[in-house]
């Protein structure tokens, strides 16, 4: 059984005992425990079930590579699925439940799948569930979805907050083991700004566990001294609980800091995402131990050798009383020795190698009385939910059992792989290190920055260095080299500390144990614990022709689980290489992508939630609208009032009232969101003539003109009224959504194409509150304010004037988007609310009432005015909309002119704008299509038109619409069929798009 030892546990604070719950059972642990070590201390070996066969799973590792120990963590608004027990620090009242089991962890119905495993090989889902087609949707998918999946989806909103921080440095060191600390120390001594990120809460990596001396003293002494030195340096930032998650182009790195995961009651954000720009990145990310592939290697109690050592040394936890060690290298002997020193029994070390003479560690183990069996292997592990023993065989054979050894734990080591993820994210290449049977960073093919220079360097075990002296020398050299490229220099006499060197016998690559394992054994030899991929699956994939490692990965799902194959990848591709008779480097690796270890969605979103999820742009009148019944409509990032609801009204009632009131009395519209762009300069007229389809240079000061803007492909992109302010100044109004876009469009042409034209533009959209005063009583209201002559004679239709209206400095544009007598008044935004209040007051007895965007739409539709975004969708040209009158024939050129002359643009079969009137007065569904005769090549009914705008007009008391129709203007009076999505077919007659006051007399009074 696994238990807490009486002594040991260097990371524990035994004076602070904590209680926590796992699957409802109360358990005890200490401050400093991970959830994994605390579970093991409580003899909770079984932590979950595998994905496909629901096999019992126990903790295998002690770090982020752990594939099995995933739990649903927390409750309510603190619930999080797939929390990894090895990276979850214990805290008081922690609450966890195991995942992927039903009805209980101990008894799981899905485990029946394991008896079907012969019938669930690689690619099973692809092969079986594709036919017959309808069964996929109704039977297979719901079944798979029910049985699959790891954690549960959270049901409540996340109760925590998150944030980002932007940081900059010369050298970012990722990893706070001895290599990272030494690299940071050396880099910092050059004066470089250094940030060091360590994923754990403690520094030093695994060296304190593996022991060894630095400068003749225990490594921990050097770690402590170096930390003190670094902490005292102004140019160094040290962060624990911060993982380097991803390396991106231009030295951009994401770091994932977990601030309160270990102490949820603390104030402040839970996670912080570090967005770092580093001139150079040193990855001192260490190495991960590989499992060995033998039958039953997934039974709880089988653990990585180094992890088992970690549990003993770091947390004072023994995984078993009797542990068999199985290895292909010397490193695992450290585990046997550590277990012995902790007073635990090691009945045997099964070493797959046959060495000519005992290595140093082997001799030490033997001296401790441990039985070492060279050339031996595990044929299979005994036990179901728990290891009960191992069957021993020869590594060279096919698995014939030589003896059985009773034990309750197995420590396995298949060698070490450098953590090359961060090196690889931006294209660093790998090479095969035959001696250590691992991929390591290829120093000649590093990730290159925009300047063609290397910007990531590895240090220590991440470089493929496994001896303490090599690690320290490599780290020092990395920092020295990196800082030189940054133009910095180490002070004289600074050198790498001297690390201890251990004489080790070479490891031997073992990808399958025993090497000739039968099919029966291979089917029980797990590669990917989380996704249940076995040696037999990878071989099958190879046999079926999945020769590319990327294809084999997807076919078998090897390495596609939440651990992203940290343990399984190399073993899997070695098996694949074996099956293909290829060298491992020829098969290559799959792609390493960020993040290194899953990070929270909250950290990615950062502060962007609730009120600041998205910027909401507010006009100067926003608060008034809000207090006066505004039903908001998002228009870009703005919020505009859709309608102002009064008590007892529906939104539709309000809209109808607003339209009628504006037609009959006086409507006020907040038009502040309309874009306003100043264009000034000697060449401004020429510039605007190019930008607009019509002529703007001939506009007289004091006058306004409606204009259309096309892009260089001829499509309509914006419209609006242009006012000429003075000889070389124009003010261009754009649509609400067009302000920034058109401003950028203007700057782009000025900066790239017409850079020698003397024109300046400025976006002054937000400088003004703009209020439209609309309706038959509009003039009366403004006359009451006084100060500006707004008579027809003084301020005619399509003219503007400047003056002091009722004490407000304003510009008044006599323009109309409603067909009524209308003035748009621009006032400095800081006075907008005051002017609005004044207008409402003077207009009170004239029926002054605000109207929203829906009333605006109806008013303009009654007049047949187009709306960018309704009648246009990026594929519509002015000619489609019957706007030929706005296309200047006098100009040699304007943006879009040549495009509009192309054959498809001039095609008479292009759909054209018409009005549509339902036969029965009902309202056409917006976006409905008109159907014609026959079917197209896909068997669909032919379309001959579509509705672009559709409203109920209270003025005309019937449905009105506009649409684009094939040969529309030539088919006046024809009735078209518009099938709706409600099953009904609507019939509408083609009519003139101007429904109201075709002569335009009302706006010109």
């Amino acid at each position, binding site marked *: 059984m696994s238990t807490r030892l009486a002594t040991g546990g260097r990371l524990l604070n035994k004076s602070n005992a904590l209680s926590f719950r796992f699957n409802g059972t109360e358990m005890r642990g200490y401050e400093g425990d991970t959830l994994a070590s605390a579970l093991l201390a409580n003899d909770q070996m079984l932590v979950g079930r595998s994905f496909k066969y629901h096999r019992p799973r126990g903790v295998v590792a002690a770090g982020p590579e752990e594939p099995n120990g995933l739990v649903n963590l927390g409750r309510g608004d603190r619930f999080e699925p797939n929390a990894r027990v090895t990276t979850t620090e214990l805290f008081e009242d922690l609450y966890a439940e195991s995942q992927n089991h039903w009805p209980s962890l101990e008894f799981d119905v899905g485990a029946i799948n394991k008896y079907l495993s012969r019938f669930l090989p690689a690619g099973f889902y692809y092969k079986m569930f594709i036919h017959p087609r309808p069964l996929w949707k109704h039977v297979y998918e719901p079944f798979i979805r029910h049985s699959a999946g790891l954690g549960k989806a959270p049901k409540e909103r996340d109760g925590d907050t998150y944030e*980002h921080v932007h940081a*900059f440095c010369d050298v970012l060191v990722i990893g706070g083991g001895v290599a990272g600390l030494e690299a940071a120390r050396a880099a910092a001594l050059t004066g470089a700004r250094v940030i060091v990120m360590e994923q754990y809460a403690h520094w030093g990596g695994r060296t304190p566990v593996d022991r060894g001396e630095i400068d003749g003293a225990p490594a921990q002494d050097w770690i402590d001294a170096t930390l003190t030195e670094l902490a005292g340096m102004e140019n160094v930032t040290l962060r624990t609980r911060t993982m380097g998650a991803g390396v991106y182009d231009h030295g951009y790195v994401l770091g994932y800091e977990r601030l309160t995961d270990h102490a949820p009651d603390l*104030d402040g954000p839970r996670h912080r995402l570090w967005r770092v*720009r580093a001139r150079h990145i040193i990855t001192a990310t260490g190495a991960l131990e590989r499992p060995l592939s033998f039958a039953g290697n997934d039974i709880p109690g089988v653990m990585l050798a180094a992890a088992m050592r970690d549990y003993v040394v770091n947390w004072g936890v023994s995984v078993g009383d009797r542990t068999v060690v199985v290895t292909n290298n010397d490193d695992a002997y450290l585990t046997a020795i550590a277990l012995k020193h902790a007073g635990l029994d090691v009945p045997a070390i099964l070493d797959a190698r046959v060495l000519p003479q005992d290595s140093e560690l082997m001799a030490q183990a033997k001296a401790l009385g441990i039985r070492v069996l060279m050339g031996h292997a595990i044929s299979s592990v005994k036990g179901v939910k728990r290891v009960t023993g191992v069957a021993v065989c020869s590594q060279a054979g096919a698995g014939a059992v030589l003896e059985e050894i009773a034990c309750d734990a197995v420590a396995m080591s298949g060698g070490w792989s450098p953590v090359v993820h961060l090196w690889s994210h931006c294209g660093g290449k790998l090479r095969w290190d035959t001696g250590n049977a691992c991929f390591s960073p290829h120093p000649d093919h590093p990730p290159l920055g925009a300047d063609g220079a290397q910007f990531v360097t590895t240090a220590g075990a991440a470089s493929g260095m496994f001896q303490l002296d090599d690690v320290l020398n490599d780290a020092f050299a990395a920092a020295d080299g990196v800082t030189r490229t940054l133009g910095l220099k180490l002070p004289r006499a600074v050198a790498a500390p001297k690390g201890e060197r251990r004489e080790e016998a070479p490891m031997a690559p073992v990808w399958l144990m025993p090497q000739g394992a039968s099919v029966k054994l291979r089917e029980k030899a797990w590669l990917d614990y989380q996704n249940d991929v076995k040696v037999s699956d990878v071989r099958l994939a190879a046999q079926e022709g999945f020769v590319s490692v990327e294809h084999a990965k997807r076919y078998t799902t090897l390495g596609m689980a939440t651990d992203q194959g940290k343990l399984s990848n190399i073993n899997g591709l070695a098996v694949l290489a074996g099956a293909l008779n290829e060298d491992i480097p020829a098969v290559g690796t799959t792609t390493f992508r960020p993040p290194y270890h899953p990070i929270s969605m909250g950290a990615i979103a950062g502060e962007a939630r609730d009120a*600041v999820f998205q910027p909401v742009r*507010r006009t100067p009148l926003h608060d008034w609208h809000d207090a006066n019944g505004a039903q908001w409509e998002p228009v870009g990032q703005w919020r505009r009032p859709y309608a102002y609801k009064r008590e007892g009204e529906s939104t539709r009632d309000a809209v109808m009232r607003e339209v009628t009131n504006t037609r009959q009395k006086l409507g006020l519209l907040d038009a502040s969101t309309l874009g306003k762009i100043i264009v000034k300069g000697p060449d401004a007229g020429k510039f605007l003539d190019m930008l607009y389809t019509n002529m703007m240079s001939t506009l007289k000061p004091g006058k306004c003109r409606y204009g259309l803007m096309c892009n260089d492909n001829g499509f309509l992109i914006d419209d609006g009224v242009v006012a000429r302010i003075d000889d070389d100044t124009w003010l261009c109004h754009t649509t609400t959504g067009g302000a920034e876009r058109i401003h950028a469009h203007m700057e782009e042409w000025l900066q790239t194409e017409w850079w020698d034209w003397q024109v300046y533009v400025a976006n002054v959209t*937000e*400088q003004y509150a703009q209020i439209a005063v609309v309706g038959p009583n509009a003039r009366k209201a403004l006359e009451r304010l006084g100060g500006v002559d707004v008579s027809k004679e003084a301020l005619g239709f399509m003219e503007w004037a400047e003056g002091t209206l009722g004490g407000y400095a304003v510009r008044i544009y006599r323009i109309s988007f409603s067909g009524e007598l209308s003035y748009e008044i621009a006032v400095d935004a800081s006075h907008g609310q*005051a002017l609005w209040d004044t207008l409402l007051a003077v207009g009170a007895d004239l029926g002054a009432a605000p109207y929203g965007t829906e009333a605006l739409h109806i008013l303009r539709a009654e007049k047949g005015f187009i709306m960018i975004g309704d009648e246009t969708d990026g594929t519509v040209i002015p000619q489609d909309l019957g706007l030929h009158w706005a296309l200047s024939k006098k100009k040699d050129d304007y943006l879009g002119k040549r495009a509009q002359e192309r054959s498809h643009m001039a095609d008479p079969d292009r759909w054209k704008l018409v009005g549509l009137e339902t036969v029965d007065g009902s309202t056409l569904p917006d976006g409905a299509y008109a159907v014609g005769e026959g079917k197209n090549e896909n068997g669909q009914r032919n379309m001959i038109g579509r509705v672009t705008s559709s409203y109920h007009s209270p003025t005309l008391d019937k449905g009105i619409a506009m649409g684009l129709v094939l040969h529309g203007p030539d088919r006046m009076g024809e009735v078209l069929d518009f099938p709706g999505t409600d099953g009904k077919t609507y019939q509408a007659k083609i009519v003139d798009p101007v429904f109201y006051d075709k002569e335009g007399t009302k706006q010109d009074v």
Partner: protein
Amino acid sequence: MSDPVSALHHATNSEGLVSICEIGPVGMITLRGDLSAKPFQKAAIAAGGVNIPNQGRCLMELDRGIAWMSPDELLILCRYDDVAGKLGDLNGKLAKHHALAVNVSDARAVFELRGARVREVMAKLAPVDLHPEVFTPGMFRRTRLGQVAAAFWMPEEDVVRLICFRSSAQYVFDLLGVASQKGSEVDLF
């Protein structure tokens, strides 16, 4: 004419790591032209009351000054009530030159942040190196804050002045509040 009303009516928040205050209205003039031309420089200096700042910098005195915006654009800051006069003066002096001067005072909101942690609060929201040796008083940075455009400078250590568009004032105010929430100290600088 009514009294000018700034976007947030001088809203303040001193609950968090720094104190946040909307100050305003502030006078602002966008001035575009040939920054190297003598008449332009003279007009700008007369309007701003300070010299032309170098690229990426500003020269500020109490409630007036000039900020460098781009190779052909300056931002002149002054008292709100002085804008009309300064605009007239600029337009007069630059009448014979190709230049553009427009009032943008009402298009903006201005915030002041105070406290020992202003640098790290800003670092949470803007992709700017705020190390005390890198971003120093006298610098002026056009950047983004969260999801909107902003510009800022430090009149002195521990003080940040920040300009954003008027329509996003509430967002910026809320954003600064979130970034300075209790317990979110970074201890970066």
